[in-house]
């Protein structure tokens, strides 16, 4: 493996990690603050992507599409919270899982009825191709943008959570809901706001990943599993944990698919390497999660 290829793969790992962070950030806030397992988080990501694709086609501009999708998905998320999810807070996790699983099915077929099974979504022409980097590296412009937005969003969320009053309330809610309620925090409004923020992050993820991934019904389920792995590793409710967890998962997954394969090919006879390589690569992330759970059952950065 040459140095340039290694750098490119490291960049891929970072990019994949930040891609997961976009989704995991919203999931961890909702899960952490509201103690609510929301399986339909992936469906909000799907709704965001479809809205972005639809609005982009309608307005002719990708950026208008993204802005509209973020706004509409946040409103949709808040409406969902006020009408339906609010009644689930007092229930146990099993009821929440069942109800939000039902929501996945309803939203999948709802989106299909409104938009059809899939929509096209391409990056703006200026960013739709590779750009040359130093060292003779060629890297897709859109992936660089995802790295940039991912890092910016991580910083923004950190400032929001650590440095603002709303952030203080969110942190208080995450560490002890009853106590913060007793201290006079309007928990109901806070939760609606947090859920809207989570939904908005979903829409950002959906519209930025749309040019890379298929915008189709059911797109949320696949990526949701990885997002859950990320927040379990990072510690539920922690933005910092979600970021570190995402980067770890991105790095381990990419290295498993590349460096590990090269290593096995050097070390093992070819037929063993070709059998073991893909199998190990597909479980690498879960081995990481199991390892972290043994070492720190609460995740790397537990909130409670």
């Amino acid at each position, binding site marked *: 493996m040459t140095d340039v290829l290694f750098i490119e793969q490291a960049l891929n790992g970072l990019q994949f990690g930040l891609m997961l962070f976009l989704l995991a950030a919203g999931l961890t806030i909702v899960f952490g603050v509201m103690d609510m397992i929301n399986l339909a988080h992936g469906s909000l990501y799907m709704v965001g992507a479809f809205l972005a694709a639809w609005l982009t086609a309608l307005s002719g501009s990708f950026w208008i599409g993204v802005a509209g999708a973020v706004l509409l998905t946040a409103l949709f998320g808040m409406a969902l919270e006020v009408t339906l999810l609010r009644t689930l807070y007092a229930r146990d996790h099993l009821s929440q899982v069942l109800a939000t699983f039902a929501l996945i099915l309803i939203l999948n077929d709802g989106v299909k009825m409104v938009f059809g099974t899939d929509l096209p979504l391409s990056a703006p022409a200026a960013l739709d191709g590779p750009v040359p980097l130093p060292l003779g590296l060629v890297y897709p412009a859109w992936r660089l943008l995802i790295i940039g937005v991912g890092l910016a969003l991580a910083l923004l969320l950190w400032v929001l959570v650590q440095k603002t009053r709303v952030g203080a309330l969110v942190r208080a809610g995450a560490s002890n809901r009853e106590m913060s309620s007793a201290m006079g925090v309007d928990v109901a409004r806070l939760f609606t706001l947090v859920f809207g923020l989570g939904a908005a992050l979903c829409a950002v993820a959906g519209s930025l990943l749309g040019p890379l991934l298929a915008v189709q019904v059911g797109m949320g389920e*696949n990526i949701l599993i990885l997002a859950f792995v990320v927040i379990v590793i990072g510690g539920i409710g922690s933005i910092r944990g979600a970021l570190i967890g995402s980067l770890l998962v991105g790095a381990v997954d990419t290295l498993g698919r590349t460096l590990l394969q090269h290593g096995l090919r050097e070390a093992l006879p070819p037929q063993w390497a070709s059998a073991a390589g893909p*199998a190990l690569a597909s479980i690498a992330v879960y081995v990481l999660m199991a390892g972290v759970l043994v070492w720190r059952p609460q995740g790397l950065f537990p909130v409670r």
Partner: protein
Amino acid sequence: MTDFRRLCSTALAAAMLLTGGAASAADKVKIGFVSTLSGPSSALGVDIRDGFQLAVKLNGGKLGGLPAEVLVSDDQFKPDVARQLFERYVKRDKVDFMTGVVFSNIMLAALPEALDNKVIYISPNAAPSSMAGKDCNPLFFAVSWPNDAYHEAAGAFANQRELKNAYLLAPNYQAGKDSLAGFKRMFKGQIVGENYTKLGQLDYAAELAEIRAAKPQALYIFLPGGMGINFIKQFVGAGLGKDMTLLLPGFSADQDVINPVGPAMAGLFNTAHWSPDFANAANRKFVAEFEKEYKRVPTLYASQGYDAAQLINAAVRDVKGKLDDPDAVRKALRAARFESVRGPFKFNNNQYPIQNYFVRTVGSDGKGGLINKSFNEPILKDHGDAYAQACPMTK
């Protein structure tokens, strides 16, 4: 009351004596159609159903001159549900034919319910190699294409283009390995790399970097459904299209992939047994009527559903509606006297098709969209499959 009942049963027995023995024309043909019609994977099943129903409608609601009753159910992408539906249609509704299933794993789970009860299954899509060889079944007909065929055609096309080496990519499961084996069976060049990825993988950046470094002349992928859409989008975004020829199996470049990928699909090569631009009369009628009825371009799957209905139509017509003579029905099906939308079609000894395969390329439809256009000459002519010799059935 008892007298009346006895009278009835006697009359019934007498009637049965009269009709029993000689085969008689049925008053209708009943078909059980089980497919995946809901959830994320439903687009294929919906297309097969719409193609099938269109053929019935264009025949005036009849198949082979008999009024057709098509019982449609959704298997929900679950093998156990499909099996229950098969049992219901076969045992309770006493259907004459079963058809509809999209996916091999679901079909193989449900199939015994039909075959063990002597009901013929017409497969509008799944045609696994396991049913083509020594386990072939006289009651199983595949009116689509054998699993390996598109991949073999792609290998042959790479030879024709004089591509010297190829890189192969597929998910790490049985169908993925079988498909690449199909490509390798035909391809005469060198395989410079073979990569098996996770099933349902989202991001292919790492694989694309490896492929860029390997510098192959041809890249062949078997990535069904959303995986293929993701890969093609990312392949184009990485700018690899200039450096190598991407070859696709037909289902990874069909209308249901062209729409979500968008303009990036233009110019890509793929292999299939059917194309919307085929000029034969049957196909022209099918494409025009399908677009009129459903306001969309038909896919491969729609054409297969349409042909499945046409095959049943021809067989029922040829036995003159005498559906209670199973041997005659089977013989009529094997003869396959219908105008397929794909052009020449006949059954092999294993009741899998012998047909032509074409290279298609994605180009403008003249209305701002994209559509597949086929090359004039087939890449594989009168092509069967590699397993037929092991099948004990004779022609």
